């Protein structure tokens, strides 16, 4: 068995994420998906604030920097005026599910026909590892020094369950980057979400479980094992909605 595997031309060069960060893999998967679908030249990325903004460094497509939490609102606007372009937002869990939860939910509720990519590492990474809505119970962060408690902070937010109640959503999936099999599955999810968007089916979203070794205070390899164990146990991996939306 042999095959050619080379970095997509859409990747401009080295990224500036921390060692072992899953963002680098996700950015490459997006680049591969865009090139294989023939949309590398007409894709527009609404870039969030936080670690996810470092997508600017590596991904060589048209992008726009958005106010914190508002990338999905920007993507919705771009898609409305440029419906022929492939439009997606690239956000972390802090940006999309804390600061920008209203924009995220109403993008799905209004059936905005773009794709939302949420990289969920359970913390605000760039600002020093504060707890996000997706921080797991018992997880220690700089703002939950004794571990997140249900009493103080409620339960971790499962956005797929929220989206899953909106009947017009076209495609929903949760992937992960903790091993090769899940990385390949995640690429398939991203391609299916992009295809649903370009078919005009409706809102699509792929949430991707990703490690933050720096703020989890773990080695990269151990971070991947944590996703395989406790993180994916709370956030189940797989497709949630397929073939939904206006064409269903």
């Amino acid at each position, binding site marked *: 068995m042999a095959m050619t*595997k080379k970095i997509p031309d859409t990747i401009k060069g080295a990224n500036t994420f921390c060692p072992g960060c899953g963002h680098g893999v996700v950015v490459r998967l997006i680049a591969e998906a865009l090139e294989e679908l023939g949309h590398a030249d007409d894709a527009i990325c609404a870039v969030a604030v936080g670690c996810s903004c470092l997508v600017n460094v*590596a991904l060589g497509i048209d992008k726009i920097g958005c106010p914190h939490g508002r990338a999905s609102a920007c993507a919705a606007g771009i898609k409305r005026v440029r419906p022929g372009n492939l439009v997606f937002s690239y956000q972390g869990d802090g940006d999309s599910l804390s600061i920008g939860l209203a924009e995220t939910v109403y993008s799905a509720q209004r059936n905005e026909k773009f794709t939302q990519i949420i990289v969920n590492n359970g913390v605000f990474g760039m600002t020093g590892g504060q707890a996000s809505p997706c921080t797991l119970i018992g997880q220690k962060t700089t703002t939950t020094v004794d571990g997140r408690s249900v009493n103080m902070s409620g339960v971790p937010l499962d956005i797929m369950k929220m989206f899953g109640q909106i009947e017009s959503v076209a495609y929903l999936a949760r992937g992960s980057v903790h091993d090769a099999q899940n990385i390949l599955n995640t690429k398939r999810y991203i391609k299916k979400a992009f295809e649903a968007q370009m078919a005009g089916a409706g809102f699509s979203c792929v949430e991707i479980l990703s490690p933050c070794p720096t703020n989890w205070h773990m080695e990269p390899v151990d971070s991947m094992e944590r996703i395989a164990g406790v993180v994916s146990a709370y956030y189940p991996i797989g497709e949630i909605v397929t073939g939904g939306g206006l064409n269903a």
Partner: protein
Amino acid sequence: MGKISLNTGYCKSCGLCIRACTRGALSISGKTNEKGYRVIAADDMKCVGCGLCYTVCPDYVFTIEDQTGSEWTV
């Protein structure tokens, strides 16, 4: 068989490729790149060109070139 090549200037020594490699072909070398990371080295005699390292690497270090003439990609 595929031929592996490495852009070690991009490597951040995270070790995820070593975890993924089923042939034991990858290791941390004694060399340091411009960023200050001890970079990955590949043993050509053990590598079968499966591409798992390419798949898991967050830093775009690996390229696998097919040397059998087929052109399918994953």
